[in-house]
């Protein structure tokens, strides 16, 4: 039953106590129960209350996604679980640092595409660039694909962070 139905991608935000082992609990839950992690980010968001926010991009059938949220919700250091994909409109962003190496026409072309994508040059040598690019996961994927024939040598990505639209917190 849990294997039937359409598999969808969901972005889940989890507010947790910023304490030792909390990330291991979340990751252990996903690996132990066989759920997917497409992307995971974590950082402290409230130092006074010592709270961190974990953003997880996962995929599964509706029944599996409900189960993932319930399993996250019953972890003791978890304060809140929000499904940004279905709880309402939300914004997702990811940042990447992309290193491209080359000279001549390839170098010019990479810079031209970077301009179209509104990527910034944050490091430059006579034969390389490091671009900084922010956007959706898809936009970053597209940019990386375009850089491949132009001398792509290294990519660093943050993973997705997301937040709901409007005035209310999750």
């Amino acid at each position, binding site marked *: *039953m*849990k294997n039937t139905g359409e598999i969808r991608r969901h972005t889940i935000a989890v507010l947790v*106590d910023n304490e030792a082992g909390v990330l291991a609990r979340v990751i252990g839950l996903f690996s132990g129960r066989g759920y997917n992690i497409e992307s995971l980010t974590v950082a402290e968001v409230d130092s006074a209350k010592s709270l961190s926010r974990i953003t997880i991009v996962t995929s599964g059938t509706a029944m599996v996604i409900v*189960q993932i949220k319930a399993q996250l919700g*019953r972890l003791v250091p*978890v304060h809140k679980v929000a499904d940004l994909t279905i709880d309402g409109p939300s914004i997702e962003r990811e940042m990447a640092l992309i290193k491209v190496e080359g000279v001549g026409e390839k170098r010019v072309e990479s810079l031209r595409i970077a301009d179209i994508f509104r990527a910034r040059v944050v490091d430059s040598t006579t034969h390389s660039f490091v671009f900084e690019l922010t956007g959706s996961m898809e936009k970053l994927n597209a940019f990386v694909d375009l850089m491949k024939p132009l001398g792509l040598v290294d990519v660093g990505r943050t993973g997705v962070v997301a937040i709901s639209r409007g005035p209310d917190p999750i």
Partner: protein
Amino acid sequence: MSSKMMTGAEIILQALADQGVEVVFGYPGGAVLPIYDELFRQSNRIRHVLSRQEGGSVHAAEGYARSTGKPGVVLVTSGPGATNAVTGLTDALMDSVPLVCLTGQVATHMIGNDAFQEADTVGITRPCTKHNYLVKDINDLGRVMHEAFYVATHGRPGPVVVDLPKDIQLASAPYKSPVKFAHPSYKPQVKGDQQAIRKAVEMIAKAERPIFYCGGGVINSGENAVKLVTEFVRMTGFPITNTLMGLGGFPGTDPQCLGMLGMHGTFEANNAMHDCDVMIAIGARFDDRVTGRLDAFSPKSKKIQIDIDPSSINKNVAVDLPIIGDVGHIMEDMMKIWRTSARQPNKEALAKWWTRIGKWRDRNCLAYRQDDKVIKPQYALERLYELTKSRNPYITTEVGQHQMWAAQFFKFNDPKHWMTSGGLGTMGYGLPAALGVQIAHPDALVIDVAGEASILMNIQEMATLAQYRLPVKIFILNNQYMGMVRQWQELLHGGRYSESYSESLPDFVKLAESFGAAGLRCTNPGDVDDCIKEMIAIDKAVIVDMVVDQTENCFPMVPSGAAHNEMILGDDKEADKPRVSDQGFALV
């Protein structure tokens, strides 16, 4: 309340006392010596029960907890002490048993250095506990101790580990007894949604072929919940079936009780589950041993599920009406709404439903044939039940055929009298669990129904029985096989009995005597009653070596990969023939 300076070890003992802990099950070692020293100094405050292996300590604490409803407390050392506890912790997690397990740890400055008897206890126990703590600051110790008890006992109960580095046990800090503890993030929902409860009442009143399917959650919710469920079931006149963990949550001798359901459940319970139109699941988690083939599980029913754990809902089976909350609270509201809206069950439809159930009952699915030569295991258990029921015994079991037969043939009219390893299926659970039960109920009759293979897994606890003069009765159904393994090999693997023969068994009578217990052997069906009576009369631990039919299989059985209405019955001529689908072959 004013605070007082104390050492870590003193804080631990004070916190245990403040939590009302009377007994600790444990085993000493280097990393917990300061706590053991404090136990010695304050020996009149908290009783320590020394088991013979840490695994035994955890199961004993489980038996104590399940027979009292209070959390069980375990104290073990670092490294091997903690790793030996892992099976018991996993067992307690699967069966929702409240435990607090204190583990010693090497000093904080040595953590991560591969020190002597160091293990990453919080890392190892993270997936097998409800929650765990490593105390690295003495100022956190008091709070963590109380938080551990709160987490273990609130919501769905479970085991909690507190890892205690040795330097923390020796350091000092102020300690304040807690007035009331409120956890900042862990607040399980207790009250059920009123609208959902109202809708449930409506569905129940309209039901034509209803069934209550009740699990261990009813018992965990407390005596009031058991009382309310019993009252509600009787008020509606509906049939009820209990899971392995739920036995005793409704009187087993009541005619409304159809017995256990699932793989080795009764014919009537499984057929009623399959054909019902409204299923009311209370504190039960649709385990694979209960459901059989999922896509054929109770296909025509609307399902109501009451559970305190949101992750138990819609995990295996999609339900139509989930109600999250505590069984006791929800049943109280349900009863109120039922009464104020003057609901009545559909009596006419119900009478028809009971007629159908009666026909399934008439099939007499637990029947067996006892001759005058070889003792049938079912006969031994049926006699054990008949000859002990007046004393309302506490029954624990190991895991295997004997466990299922015990579940089938014992009728429990009270909760907390049946302790068995359900979710994890831990062989070796029964003897230490019985030990813990007997500690909690010194005057009660406590029986461990065992197999000759399982009992050897924690046989060292015989010494614990001797030390504390615990009159636990160990009732071994000795068929010289790991019976359930042998049964599956017979039905699924062409009778190739790979490694399932119990070779080189000890003489259980002599073994009992060597531990200061009494040993009895019975080989003749005519002697079964006398043997059981003698066992009860002996005022100390007894091992009964009941030599039973080697080839008896446990029926009825829903073979793996089959549906509830495709049961194999024991008197079926084809019963012992293999009949498992290719898909079912891969299932455990």
